[in-house]
């Protein structure tokens, strides 16, 4: 697999560095998912798109890159990846820059100070993030205790008197265990987030429910346990159902309750 520019591999598939996007190659969905999950956010994804094509970061063809960016976002959504809101924000920013680029540039004023390129701020952020990424890699390469080096501690042949220790109590043990459980609970929560909620499946559920129980408010269709992702999936499923003319969405005024009723 040819490397895309000198970009570091973004993912490994079957041990092979995955740097280039093979245009006509069928990618098994799992590999694709692994590849897409590796992006650490919108800046990371944008940098990948730019570096892969050997584009000069100071002269980004915004229209082209923004199109590719949106294509990736769509792909990530189709694969039900947990998409942070920042990805959508970046899509909006790219669109805004694109439109500002279409406006005629004003002539330099008397100080000779040119109006700033609409891309300048984005370029600064991309460069700062790229430096951070490099710094993180260098940090990771340092020999680390626990991974690369193990400090040695030898026992004494005569155990030192135990009096010096702070007293330990059952209560302290109990508290330690509770702290562990709390952390695990948080981690378990994250695992739920990562679990794919399928829009397709949700569409079926919602339709069955609406047909059985009749009209409902949007809020009543949500399950608090599913969190933000649940809201997004439910909303997407409803929009999809409305588009397919299976349901009707009604709202008296902006900000009021959204009512959903099944269509025959």
């Amino acid at each position, binding site marked *: 697999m040819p490397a895309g520019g000198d970009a570091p591999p973004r993912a490994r598939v079957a041990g092979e560095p995955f740097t280039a996007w093979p245009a006509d190659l069928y990618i098994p969905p799992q590999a694709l998912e692994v590849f897409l999950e590796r992006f650490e956010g919108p800046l990371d994804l944008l940098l990948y798109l730019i570096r892969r094509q050997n584009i000069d970061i100071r002269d980004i063809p915004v229209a082209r890159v923004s199109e590719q960016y949106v294509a990736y976002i769509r792909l990530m959504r189709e694969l039900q990846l947990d998409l942070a809101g920042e990805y959508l924000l970046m899509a909006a920013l790219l669109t805004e820059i694109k439109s500002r680029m279409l406006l005629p540039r004003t002539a330099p004023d008397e100080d000779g100070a040119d109006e700033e390129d609409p891309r300048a701020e984005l370029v600064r952020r991309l460069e700062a993030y790229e430096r951070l990424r490099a710094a993180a890699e260098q940090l990771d390469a340092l020999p680390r205790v626990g991974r690369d080096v193990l400090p040695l501690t030898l026992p004494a*042949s005569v155990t030192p008197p135990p009096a010096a220790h702070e007293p330990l109590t059952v209560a302290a043990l109990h508290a330690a265990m509770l702290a562990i459980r709390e952390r695990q609970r948080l981690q378990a929560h994250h695992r739920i987030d990562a679990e794919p909620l399928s829009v397709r499946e949700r569409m079926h559920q919602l339709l069955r429910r609406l047909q059985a129980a009749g009209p409902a408010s949007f809020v009543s269709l949500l399950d608090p346990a599913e969190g933000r992702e649940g809201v997004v999936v439910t909303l997407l499923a409803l929009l999809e159902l409305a588009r397919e003319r299976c349901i009707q969405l009604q709202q008296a005024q902006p900000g009021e309750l959204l009512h959903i009723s099944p269509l025959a």
Partner: protein
Amino acid sequence: MTAPLLRQVQALLLASPEPLSLGRLRELCEPTPTAGTLREAIAALQREAEPLPFELVEVAAGFRYQLRAAYTAQVHRLWQVRPPRHSRALLETLALIAYRQPVTRGEIESVRGVAVSTSIMRTLLDEGWIRAAGQREVPGRPTLYVTTPAFLSDFNLRSLDQLPVIAMELAAAEAPPES
């Protein structure tokens, strides 16, 4: 690349928080030495350590490096000037062993999400609060740890049942994801 047997054995013994038996050492060295070669290597390490402040001794459970008695006073001063504080890491490690026994070091690490340092295991062993109790019959046969009667008496417990109850969620969360 494999290091000379002598250095492999030395590295393993220096880093292990508990004594290693000949059998364990043979399993861990590469290529697997004969018992005779291994014994020779240990004897060589013992001779090598003669002028040094630590010695390689054989105890019931196997071989271990320890500081020589002549340095005890010095080491005690080390503790006295700044008594070892029980860190949160130590407390959590002990709690996991108490509540979940028998457990392996790897299991503790996977629950805590961070490496358990050798010095923590060593402290718990030195305090006499935990001990090795066999090996889990999985590849690599990692050591299983349990708490000791000394742990119960130091914590004023008559039995493990007296530990405050922790909801079952923890045990459940540990199990491999079903569904």
